[in-house]
């Protein structure tokens, strides 16, 4: 197999049935393989990110997907990504939950505490309903990080924000 190009493709905009079917049919027609994908609705808006692998170039992929954006209610972007191996971090995995009254700065304040100790957020969802703001993040912590100390600093930050915080180690049950 020759050199493979990776593309990051994002599709954002007004939700309707069939967006994923159209997008993936076009990419399949170009011989591209979907290596990773994430799609959700954000405040009701369609939001999808795909990583595709194949030998088409950016211009070809963009041109092929142009029909998706022609209605004016979807935005499509295509970017070439360097092929890189992500180094496996020898560390521990945690789930961080924060919930409380909505106010500006909850996410930035909380994730700053994580960043300060070299923690890496690998997945993040925030939700708002009424006045209730909820953040759930999956966090990789380097081996030498003292998780108890991190929880203390997270609690201090949470107390300043008037929200609650929990940090639980992810337990995978090997079957």
């Amino acid at each position, binding site marked *: 197999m020759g050199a493979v190009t990776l593309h990051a493709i994002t599709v954002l905009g007004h939700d309707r049935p069939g967006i994923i079917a159209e997008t993936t049919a076009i990419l399949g027609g170009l011989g591209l393989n979907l290596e990773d994908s994430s799609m959700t609705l954000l405040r009701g808006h369609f939001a999808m990110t795909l990583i595709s692998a194949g030998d088409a170039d950016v211009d070809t992929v963009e041109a092929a997907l142009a029909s998706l954006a022609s209605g004016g209610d979807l935005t499509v972007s295509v970017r070439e990504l360097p092929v890189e191996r992500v180094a496996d971090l020898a560390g521990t995995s945690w789930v961080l939950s924060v*919930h409380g009254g909505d106010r500006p700065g909850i996410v930035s304040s909380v994730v700053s505490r994580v960043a300060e100790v070299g923690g890496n957020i690998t997945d993040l969802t925030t939700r708002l*309903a009424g006045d209730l703001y909820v953040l*759930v993040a999956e966090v990789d912590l380097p081996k030498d990080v003292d998780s108890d100390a991190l929880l203390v600093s997270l609690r201090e930050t949470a107390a300043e924000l008037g*929200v609650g915080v929990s940090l639980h180690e992810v337990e995978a049950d090997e079957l």
Partner: protein
Amino acid sequence: MSSAELNDDVAAWTESSLAVEGRVLEVVTAPASVLSTVGADVDPTAPEIVQLAADLVATMRVSPGCVGLAAPQVGESVKVFCVDVSEHPKTRDHHGTFVLCNAEVVESSRNEKAREGCMSVPDFTGDVKRATRVVVRGQLPGTGETVTLRANAFEARALQHEIDHCDGLLFLDRAAGAHAIHARKTYL
């Protein structure tokens, strides 16, 4: 699990033993701070706790689909909750309606992940891993009798959810991952 493992005293308990009329109270919703506060231990024989026990049962009864209600959910930061999973389709064995004070999980095993909702978090549901077999110890309101009961399946989940409320924890604190909290699509 055979019904021989049920605690007869708990299974036989009904709110009529409290001998007070329960009142329907307003259920508070997150982000109310009482829901994130560790509840105080109580004297299960105190008249106000007996009244609260009756109120919790009365409020649970009028709330569609409600299988349990803890004191912090009605604004009282104390360790009292009621449970009744008898009508729920996921229930296996159960103890009917009962109220426990100062309850704690003393044994737990066989974790399973399932999606939970909560009257105090009306707009979300969440995937939470909990034990499907627990042993819980607490006190019955009124008599103050200490009881230890084994619960499984849905009753075990309900007990852990309510004991969490008494400790100031919501299912949001136990989310199984970043994609474990969902916008609620159907309301009971």
